[in-house]
């Protein structure tokens, strides 16, 4: 063997030792997103990095395809399986198409969870929802109640998407269930803007004409909330009618600053990335098990409880107001 050959062999051995040593002390968790270059997921990555820092022995691999295809995500997951990462936490482009690949990952001992956008139960150990219908239903009426006088009853109306929107209907139903807990709020009616900007705008105008004493509009849809805020502004009723519900910080920043909306809610992507990483870590470390009824700690976010489909809800939707809107409006 030549001198160069020996040197190469030594170097190779050294390298091999180094990589095994690195593997022993470091857990590699892959955060697979729908596509790279989306603000929401970049924010989730920030949360994942925060969790990694807190845990100490974790390396985050933030990756995803260039466009939101299942095929692209499968290529990414295949290369992660090849690297023998310890855990994969995926926000899926397709509920079903990823299942065979993720099954293979689990067969090879990799922990697989889905978050944000889920995978069918047979393709993951658990799924993390950003929130739950009951938490959302409670939050939207709480936001309205918090900004209204504590005594007496104020009239409030709901501006929803379409009459057949499953999500919105469930949230409104959950909201009505907890309405007795907020005696200062009286829900006087629900209208449907069909998630179209102009129709939502006209419906919001109609609400203010029908109920002259209206004090708040709850719009649990990102299209409706912006349209309602605009209608309130145009009617010169800022300060008189408060718009709240679910919306995107980037679209709502202007209306929060003008006062048309005092506060609104939506999931916080940073917390979501943080919690997904925490869950993946505990499951891969085997100090928690993904089974119905189990509780798993997620660091500063407390803990989640798995339901009978191995799904968990992270937390209440996150509230955005004048205090934090600037920080998030640039993210998503």
């Amino acid at each position, binding site marked *: 063997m030549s001198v160069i050959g020996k040197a190469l062999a030594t170097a190779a051995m050294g390298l091999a030792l180094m990589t095994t040593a690195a593997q022993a002390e470091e857990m590699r968790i892959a955060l697979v997103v729908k596509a*790279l270059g989306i603000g929401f997921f970049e924010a989730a990555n920030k949360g994942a990095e925060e969790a990694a820092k807190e845990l100490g022995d974790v390396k985050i691999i933030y990756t995803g395809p*260039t466009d939101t295809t*299942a*095929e692209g995500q499968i*290529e990414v997951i295949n290369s992660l399986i090849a690297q023998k990462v310890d855990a994969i936490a995926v926000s899926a482009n*397709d509920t*079903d*198409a990823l299942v065979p690949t993720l099954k293979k990952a689990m067969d090879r001992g990799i922990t697989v969870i889905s978050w944000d956008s889920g995978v069918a139960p047979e393709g993951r150990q658990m799924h993390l929802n950003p929130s739950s219908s009951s938490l959302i239903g409670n939050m939207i009426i709480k936001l309205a109640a918090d900004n209204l006088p504590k005594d007496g009853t104020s009239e409030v109306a709901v501006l929803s998407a379409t009459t057949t929107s499953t999500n919105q209907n469930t949230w409104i139903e959950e909201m009505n269930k907890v309405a007795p807990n907020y005696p200062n709020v009286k829900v006087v009616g629900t209208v449907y803007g069909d998630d179209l900007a102009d129709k939502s705008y006209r419906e919001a105008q109609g609400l203010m004409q029908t109920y002259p004493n209206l004090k708040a509009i709850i719009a649990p849809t990102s299209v409706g909330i912006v349209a309602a805020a605009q209608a309130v502004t145009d009617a010169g009723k800022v300060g008189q009618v408060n718009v709240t519900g679910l919306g995107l910080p980037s679209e709502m920043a202007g209306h929060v600053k003008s006062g048309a909306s005092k506060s609104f809610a939506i999931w916080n992507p940073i917390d979501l990335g943080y919690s997904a990483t925490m869950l993946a870590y505990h499951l891969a470390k085997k100090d928690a098990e993904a089974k119905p009824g189990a509780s798993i700690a997620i660091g500063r976010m407390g803990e989640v409880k798995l339901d009978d489909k191995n799904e968990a809800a992270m937390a209440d939707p996150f509230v955005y107001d004048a205090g934090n809107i600037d920080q998030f409006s640039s993210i998503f």
Partner: protein
Amino acid sequence: MTTATGRQIPDRLTSPLSRALKSWEALLLVVAVAIFIANSLASPYFLDPWNLSDASFNFTEKAMIAFAMAMLIIAGEIDLSVGSIIALASTVMGAAAAAGMGTPALVVLGLGTGLVCGAFNGLLVARFGLPSIVVTIGTMSLFRGISYIALGDGAYTTYPDSFAWFGQGYVWWVITVELVIFALAALAFGILLHRTNFGRMVYAIGNNATAARFSGIRVEKIRFILFLLTGLMSGIASICLTSRLGSTRPSIASGFELEVVTIVVLGGVSILGGSGSIAGVVLAALVMGLVTFGLGLLNVPGIVMSIIMGLLLISVIALPRLWTMLRK
């Protein structure tokens, strides 16, 4: 004098050996070996038979279509509807599976849909004399549109267990079913293009369709058969991809057409028609697969990966041109 196809007729023949060494295929082989070595040095996970086997899915389905597409492009035509044919064939199979049909019936339907789509393209091009790029841009929207109408935002997920064999099965050790189909297709198309009269006629049409017609070649018939073959291979790819994903959505295989054409062009097939080989396409598919897998192992973001693929394509195509320009 250069003809419209950009081909030159040499006045003296070089020896077969030096021709082989200077060929496009040799260059691609060198590139493939270089990428293979670079990948093995860059990542400790690369040289693992199972990993390489998984990685082969990055190119097998696209390469199956690329063989047929290569012949089509050599004949001076193109088919941009292949991704949409996959989607439509997958939708038909999904609907049949939902209705309770077994694996053999699904395979027949997948192949049949591919053939019908290919025949439709072929009819419009060969019978009515429409330009293939226009026809297939149209059918690209048409075929996928039908899938969207049938499925909307839903999905077919009820495939029989035995159907998983095509996209998830192994013939022996790490050799997947798809790899075997890929190899058989390469062999079949290699023989068809390089060892049969049919293949010679395809080259003749690509170089000069008018001269070919005057030589007694039934140009329209051959064009029709080529579209039929492309449809058939898209049907086979659809069976493999659907089986691998275990589900159908109308967005399945979106963007495949450009990747297939990229493999063909990287394989040295002249986009103007008239020249190219199946060996080149095989090597190009391997190069594409190795590059995407190698970069994936290093967790290179997809955006950077597509930039590298673009640069590779341009440089591999530009280098020989530059070389001849510098020698003059």
